[in-house]
Structure formats: structure tokens, C-alpha cells
């Protein structure tokens, strides 16, 4: 395994050995380690000293079902703290096969927004690395840019790229990755890492794994056995069939039943139009429409769950892939929109701009509160998104996400923590996830530790901190392995499979608690970086209005004790 280090300022491209202290980490955990070791905590996220880091998780590279995720990290322009965003697709798999434990990008072409001629594509292969001009790609959405890159470099490469949002250095810009069919739809969305890449003057990174093989195994037979057990457990698990048939959209009616479906700019917790936003409806319509529409699609090669989908219009032609619950919540019920065709078109637009659909949905909710559009007006929502592509001042304000939009537009009822928007779990109704929003070093992010599935009273403030703690530790562990959250229910059947796979892959002797060990180490490093960057307990809070304004239908406020929030990481 090796580290690639690329300096956009000097143009230096170097292979380095993996330092001993980094060698037992990957993905989110390794990002945190590198950030603490190298990135000045006070640096400007858009300046030359911020690092943009790509690292596949520890188990990536073997087409182990749902375990080939790529983690991307740096200091976030949105939160001002550490950021990890991960995605499926093929980037992680190709990097691991090329033996790359981490790619570290430093410096920037120019501090000012790059001129057309300054933009670059980074090309990595087993032969080496080179920076190439990207002038012909500047200003293109990710769809057209990816198509040109695949034509230029061949359709077997993996690509990580930014859209116009990242080029404009917007805080809600993410980094898109190709799915297994070459569609740029798997976005490391959260916290503005696309803006960090844009600030470096980099439009795309091409990973050409020609000639590469799967990473070596210390004990191939033991790996094969552990893989067999995991795959069988996953295939037999009832949740696998549920996700295959309904996808994450099944959460719409679950959250609606709990009064936790963000509705009309987080002012209500249930939506009268939830039925036509549901996974059940999505499945019926995609099957009925046929053509490219399908309720089942794998984002990574070899995934046994295939929870993704392709939403086609009435003629069956794809409008967007995938259509996920978070987007449905933030761009559907949150905007008073009950039509999945409308949500799909908005989703495609933000995808192509290379922006985070969660923060953009929340920003449009803020726009409604500010009187710039009405609830349910999908056409106006699209007009506002098109302003981003045009680069108008209003478009740029929205493209920086909900927190900035709220500040500029004078709205204080903004659903953010550390400047990052909440996803589609209302924290006043699902308070454990609210604890995660408040305390995660990442800012509000359900993937940092969602508690909605727990069989507890989600309104009881007393039981939530422990739930959130356990969920956050597990998720930080899975993110370090490169495992999708949904691989978790396969691992949960036989937890010994995780150390089994790691020991067989690397020749280690790790024990049964390795998932929690990796999770705690990762969270500790992330909190250390944030502490050095100026974060205190005062930042681990939900916005005050959510503690004051009761949420229908339960009339509940967020009332988890501050002492409980402060104790989440006392382990």
C-alpha cells in the first residue's frame, strides 16, 4: 500500500510509504489521523494548507458486498471542523486495487478562483500520476463532464469530480463518483468537500486501475471463509429483501408514523402527502413505468443488497438515479411537495451541479420561510436551483446551504448544527438522532449515528444519549472499514466476521471489539481536530428554536439535557 501526495501549487506528484502510525487505519479513521497529524486546524478550508484526502476503508478492494466505500475528508468550509463524507460507486474499489491507502491533495493552483486555463484533471495509474489541462470541462455539469472523461480515458476508469457548485466554491458542494454503470451519482455530499477540491483548481481525478489486481490477502482461505459467512448472513437477512424491494424510501412512512418526517421547513413532523413519497409508492410506480425505471439497483459492484433505484418518468426514461429517502424528505415533504417526479427533477439538478441535496433541500425550505417561494411550488424551486447554475448572487447564497441562506435572508428557524443541515429525521420527534446531530464532530448528519430503528420511546429525552453514543461508535467503525451502514445488519448476525476479515486480509490479531475500537479512536481523533480548531461544548447543541418551538403532531421540543449531550463521548 502507498500514499500518493499531490501538490497543486508546485505540481509535485509523489509516492510515499504508509507511515507505521497510519498503517492500521483506512477510510474515515485514517482521514482523521492524517488531519490531526498534518492539517493546521486553523487553516482556511479553501486555502492552500487544507488537505483534501481520499481513502478507501480497510476492507475495500475485494468486492465484499457493500464494503467498497470511499471516504473523502478535509477541513469543511461549511462547519469549520473536520469532515468526512463517504460514497459508494467505484472510486474506493479502484483505489484499493491500485494499492493506494490514501491520496493527499495539498496546495492550490491560485488563491483566487482559477481561470479556465488553470483547471486540472489528476490522472493516476500504476505507471504514475500526471496533471492535465481541464479547460474543456470547466462549467460543465457532472453528467457531461463524466461522459467526456470516460471518452478520453476509457470506460473502465473510476472518476471523482466536481460540478459547477464545486467550481464556484459553494459550501454545499460535494464530490461525485461514478456508480458501477458509469453514472456520476454517488456523491460524497456533505460539508463542502467539492468546494475544497474546486479551491485547489481540480475538476476531476481519474483512477485508471489497468493492470491492477485485488489487494493481497495474508490468509486467502480464512478470508474466503469469513466472506462466505458474511455474504450468507447478509443474503438471508430480512432487511436485505426490504432494502432491495423498497430502498431507503421506505423510511418515509416510518418517519411519518413517528411524527418525525420533516415537513414544510421543519415546522411539522407529518405530511398529508407522505403516501406518494413512500418507498411503497416508489416501488409500484417504477415497476409500472418500466423502461429504465427500477426499484432495485446496486451502486457498487458485487453488492448483494442493491438498495438503490432508478426513477424514470411516465415514459420510463430515467429522471434520476438514485432517489433516496433523504432527498425525498428534504426536497419533498420539507418543501410541501408530494410528487416524486418533481422531487426527481430537483434531485437531478442538484446532482448535476455537484451539490448536496440535503443542504439544498434545507436551503430551499429557508427560501420559503423568507418568502422567495411557496410550499409545493416545484417550478419555483427549480428556478431557484437554476440560479445556482447561472451563478447569480441568490443562487450562490442557496448553494452555500441552509445556514448561510438563513443568515442572509434573516431566517432563524434553520435546521442546522455546526452550519450543516439536518437530514430527514426530525430531532424533536426522533431525539436520539437529534443527539447525534448535536454532538457529532461532523455537524448534523444522520449517517453519523441514526437511532430511528431502536425500539425505544423516541420522545423520551432520558434514553437518547446512550443510544446515540453506541450508534456513533459503530458508524465511525463502519466508515473506517469502508462498509455501508447496511452491511451492518449482516455483520450484526456474526460480529466475529469483522476481526476475521481484517486478520485474514492483513495478518493482524485484532479481537472481537475491533469495530468499537476503531470507532472510538476515530471519534477521538475527530474531536481532537475540532478542539484545536476552536470547537467547544457550546457547539454540540441543536439550534435554540428547536428547544422552544413545539413540533406537531406530538407538540414536542428537543429537551435532552445538556449534561447528557456533554457526556456522549465519555467512554
Amino acid at each position, binding site marked *: 500500500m502507498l500514499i500518493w501526495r499531490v501538490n497543486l501549487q508546485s505540481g509535485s506528484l509523489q509516492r510515499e510509504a504508509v507511515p507505521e502510525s497510519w498503517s492500521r487505519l483506512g477510510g474515515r479513521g485514517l482521514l482523521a489521523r492524517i488531519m490531526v497529524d498534518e492539517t493546521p486546524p486553523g487553516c482556511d478550508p479553501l486555502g492552500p494548507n487544507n488537505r483534501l484526502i481520499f481513502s478507501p476503508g480497510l476492507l475495500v478492494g475485494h468486492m465484499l458486498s457493500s464494503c467498497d466505500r470511499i471516504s473523502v475528508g478535509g477541513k469543511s468550509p461549511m462547519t469549520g471542523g473536520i469532515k468526512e463524507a463517504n460514497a459508494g460507486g467505484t472510486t474506493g474499489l479502484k483505489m484499493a486495487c491500485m494499492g493506494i491507502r490514501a491520496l493527499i491533495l495539498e496546495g492550490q493552483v491560485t488563491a483566487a478562483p482559477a481561470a479556465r486555463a488553470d483547471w486540472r484533471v489528476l490522472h493516476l495509474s500504476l505507471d504514475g500520476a500526471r496533471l492535465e489541462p481541464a479547460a474543456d470541462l470547466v462549467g460543465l455539469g457532472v453528467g457531461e463532464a463524466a461522459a467526456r472523461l470516460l471518452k478520453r480515458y476509457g470506460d473502465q476508469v473510476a472518476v471523482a469530480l466536481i460540478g459547477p457548485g464545486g467550481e464556484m466554491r459553494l459550501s454545499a458542494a460535494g464530490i461525485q463518483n461514478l456508480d458501477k454503470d458509469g453514472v456520476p451519482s454517488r456523491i460524497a455530499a456533505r460539508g463542502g468537500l467539492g468546494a475544497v477540491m474546486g479551491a485547489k483548481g481540480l475538476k476531476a481525478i481519474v483512477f485508471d486501475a489497468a493492470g491492477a489486481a485485488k489487494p493481497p490477502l495474508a490468509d486467502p482461505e480464512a478470508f474466503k471463509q469469513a466472506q462466505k459467512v458474511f455474504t450468507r448472513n447478509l443474503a438471508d437477512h430480512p432487511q436485505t429483501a426490504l432494502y432491495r424491494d423498497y430502498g431507503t424510501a421506505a423510511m418515509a412512512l*416510518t418517519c411519518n*408514523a413517528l411524527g418525525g418526517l420533516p415537513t414544510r421547513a421543519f415546522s411539522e413532523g407529518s405530511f398529508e402527502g407522505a403516501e406518494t413519497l413512500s418507498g411503497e409508492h416508489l416501488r409500484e410506480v417504477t415497476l409500472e413505468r418500466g423502461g429504465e425505471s427500477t426499484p432495485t439497483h446496486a451502486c457498487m459492484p458485487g453488492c448483494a443488497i442493491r438498495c438503490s433505484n432508478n426513477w424514470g418518468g411516465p415514459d420510463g426514461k430515467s429522471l434520476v438515479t438514485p432517489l433516496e429517502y433523504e432527498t425525498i424528505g428534504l426536497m419533498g415533504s420539507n418543501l410541501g411537495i408530494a410528487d416524486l417526479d418533481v422531487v426527481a427533477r430537483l434531485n437531478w439538478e442538484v446532482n448535476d451541479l455537484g451539490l448536496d441535496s440535503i443542504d439544498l433541500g434545507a436551503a430551499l425550505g429557508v427560501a420559503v420561510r423568507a418568502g422567495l417561494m411557496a410550499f409545493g411550488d416545484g417550478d419555483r424551486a427549480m428556478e431557484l436551483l437554476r440560479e445556482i447554475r447561472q451563478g447569480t448572487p441568490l443562487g450562490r447564497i442557496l448553494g452555500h446551504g441552509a445556514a448561510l441562506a438563513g443568515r442572509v435572508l434573516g431566517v432563524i428557524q434553520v435546521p442546522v448544527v455546526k452550519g450543516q443541515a439536518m437530514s430527514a429525521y426530525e430531532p424533536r420527534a426522533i431525539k436520539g438522532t437529534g443527539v447525534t446531530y448535536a454532538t457529532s464532530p461532523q455537524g448534523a448528519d444522520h449517517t453519523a449515528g441514526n437511532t430511528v430503528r431502536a425500539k425505544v420511546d423516541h420522545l423520551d429525552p432520558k434514553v437518547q444519549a446512550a443510544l446515540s453514543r453506541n450508534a456513533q461508535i459503530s458508524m465511525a467503525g463502519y466508515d473506517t472499514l469502508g462498509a455501508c451502514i447496511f452491511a451492518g445488519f449482516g455483520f450484526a448476525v456474526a460480529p466475529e466476521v469483522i476481526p476475521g476479515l481484517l486478520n485474514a486480509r492483513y495478518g493482524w490479531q485484532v479481537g472481537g471489539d475491533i469495530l468499537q475500537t476503531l470507532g472510538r479512536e476515530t471519534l477521538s481523533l475527530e474531536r481532537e481536530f475540532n478542539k484545536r480548531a476552536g470547537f467547544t461544548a457550546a457547539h454540540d447543541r441543536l439550534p435554540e428554536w428547536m428547544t422552544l418551538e413545539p413540533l406537531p403532531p*406530538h407538540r414536542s421540543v428537543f429537551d435532552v439535557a445538556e449534561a447528557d449531550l456533554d457526556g456522549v463521548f465519555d467512554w
Partner: protein
Amino acid sequence: MVHLHTSLRRRTPEGLVRRLEVALPAGGTLADLLRALDLQAEGLLLVVNGRTAHLARVLEEADEVHLIPALSGG
């Protein structure tokens, strides 16, 4: 009213349904409801009137019951 989420939808003489009215004797509980529907509690999130409920919960006529196969969200 009983709401049957995702895979719990069932075929009835009226077609495929996701909502049912179920008659229970007075004092009937969630456990009785599951028995009447021939469902196991394991792997189900049980929600009554918007709140997670236990099997011993006594059901009333106007209750809205959601039976939800466990999902982890995305």
C-alpha cells in the same frame, strides 16, 4: 386502523392492501393484534398513535397502529 408497512402488505378479497381494520375483544393488546394477523413481533417496530409501543399495550378503537418491518434508514 392498522397500517402495514412495506413487506407486510397482504392480499385480501379486496386486493393487495396496506391498511386494515381489525376487530379485537375489549382489552385486546398489541400482542393480540399480531396474533390475529399471524405476525411475529421480532423484527417489527410497533408504533401506536405516533409512539413506539410495547406488546402489552391495550388498544382502543380509535388507535392508529403502524407495524413496521425494521429498517435502518439511509
